[in-house]
């Protein structure tokens, strides 16, 4: 129970700080932002990996493996595509955008 409160607190604090930071992201970076957040949510792969730390039957293993594939797709693909997109912005922005 205690742990649940800590987690709820973590959620609320991160959510609040997230709002505070994200309203500052300019519209031109909204697509990379969403792509980045998808990569971040790929960390669900962590939850999927933890399933393998306990025993499970074949079906549970299979479902957990699908979750790992999905999470890894988001994590790796998300960061890669975000980086590619930000590269488009870099070319001429070097001198001007800050």
């Amino acid at each position, binding site marked *: 129970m205690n742990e649940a409160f800590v987690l709820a607190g973590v959620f609320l604090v991160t959510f609040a700080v997230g709002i505070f930071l994200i309203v500052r992201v300019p519209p031109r970076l909204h697509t990379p932002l969403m792509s980045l957040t998808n990569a971040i949510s790929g960390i669900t792969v962590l939850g999927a990996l933890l399933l393998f730390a306990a025993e499970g039957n074949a079906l549970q293993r299979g479902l957990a493996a699908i979750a790992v594939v999905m999470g890894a797709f988001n994590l790796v693909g998300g960061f890669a595509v975000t980086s590619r997109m930000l590269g488009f*912005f870099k070319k001429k922005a070097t001198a001007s955008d800050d």
Partner: protein
Amino acid sequence: MGDPGYLIGNLVVLAVILVGIGMFSRPNAARFGNLAIALALICALGVEVARNPLNAPLLVLAALAVGSLGGLAAAKKVNMTQIPALVGFQNGAGGLASCLVSLVQLTREPQTLDRVGVVAAVAAMIVGAVTFSGSMVASGKLAGLLRQKPVALPGHRWILLVVSIVLLAAAFGATSVSDSGPTWPAIAVVLFALLLGLVFSARVGGADMPVLISLLNAFSGLSAGICGVVVKSQVLTACGATVAASGLILTYAMCRAMNRNVWAIVWPAAPAAVPESAPDGGQDLPSETVPSDQAVETPAPPSDPFPQAAEVLQAAGKIIVIPGYGMALAHAQIGTVGLANRLVKMGKDVKFAVHPLAGRMPGHMHVLLAEADVDPDMLFDLNEVNSEFAATDVALIVGACDVVNPAAASVEGTPISGMPILAAQDAARVIVCNLDARPGYSGVENLLYRQEKTLLLLGDAQETMSRLLNAIS
């Protein structure tokens, strides 16, 4: 859990994520932020795996490899027109992962979750499954695999309501069975949540996609956050919260750009005002032009307007280009940027005015133009540029319709009434390079087309751009 080193490690990961997101306020720093967050999360994963020895390591490795390589391939191959479909798919993948993790945890025997864990697992399953099926529909529509027209079933709201009630009942069943693994209610929860996402998403049409995709982004974050409670991971909970916050802000930004509340989009009172004039094609491609096979239907303009348009452009000093999604449909980004660059070389002041809805997801038009190598200094958002139209010689519209329709301000009771528009009508001359003069996605006739100062260059935008370029050179 009580290990202080582990707690500090978690805090560091959290800090890096938040600082990294903070860096997204500036384009140059954003690349570094992206990299920093990626490294932090990979470290967090490594630590977790080192602390919890995994069974079936080969299966885990294989699954990791498949997912990672698939992600890399998709990231490498995708072009910026397709990016909303990929992002939509990723929203769904995240939702599915959270849903499956929670399902496996819940149906484990003997039950290892406490009461909070069981409720959280059912909640994560619902949100995750709704996100997954909703995102697959959205992604299918965005990728052109499904028709973009909103699908309204008879009694759509009632169906949504009934599915929701059955879902809640199943959820109640799944949370109240405590000793044996509550397998059947849990599966019912997943199935009805999938159905709910499907029905809900089918109702949303092409031009409302920016709202839907942002909302699903928030949902995928929420499901990950709740999933973090299920597996008792602070990092996962915090990541989910960040994503939910971002999705929520983008949803709000998109709704504000449309002057609609989110409820009106996911729970529309009546079938959206989609005109019936073109039974196939046309209206299901929103706010802008339609692909070239529709061009035959367009009545030929009275005389060739190209020479006149070229004259107007040559004489102009200040030009604002207004790109819309129709430009992307016609693959005319490069041509448009080329024309703009040419006009700059001729000594003219050229700006791009980007409406928040000029695309299929938040910020989409910016990445479309950035891919076409536009000078980022030429891009301006609605608020930055709207007051400048009055002092502008030419507003050059490429594949945009609803976002420049003065009816939004002057006519009451239309689907776009009250929506902030780009004030192209204030410019001295307006050149419209759309495929046809039909209304955009909203179905509201564009009053701009009838004005005397407007020149209509109808037809495929890619061709129009190259003809204009030739004409002014």
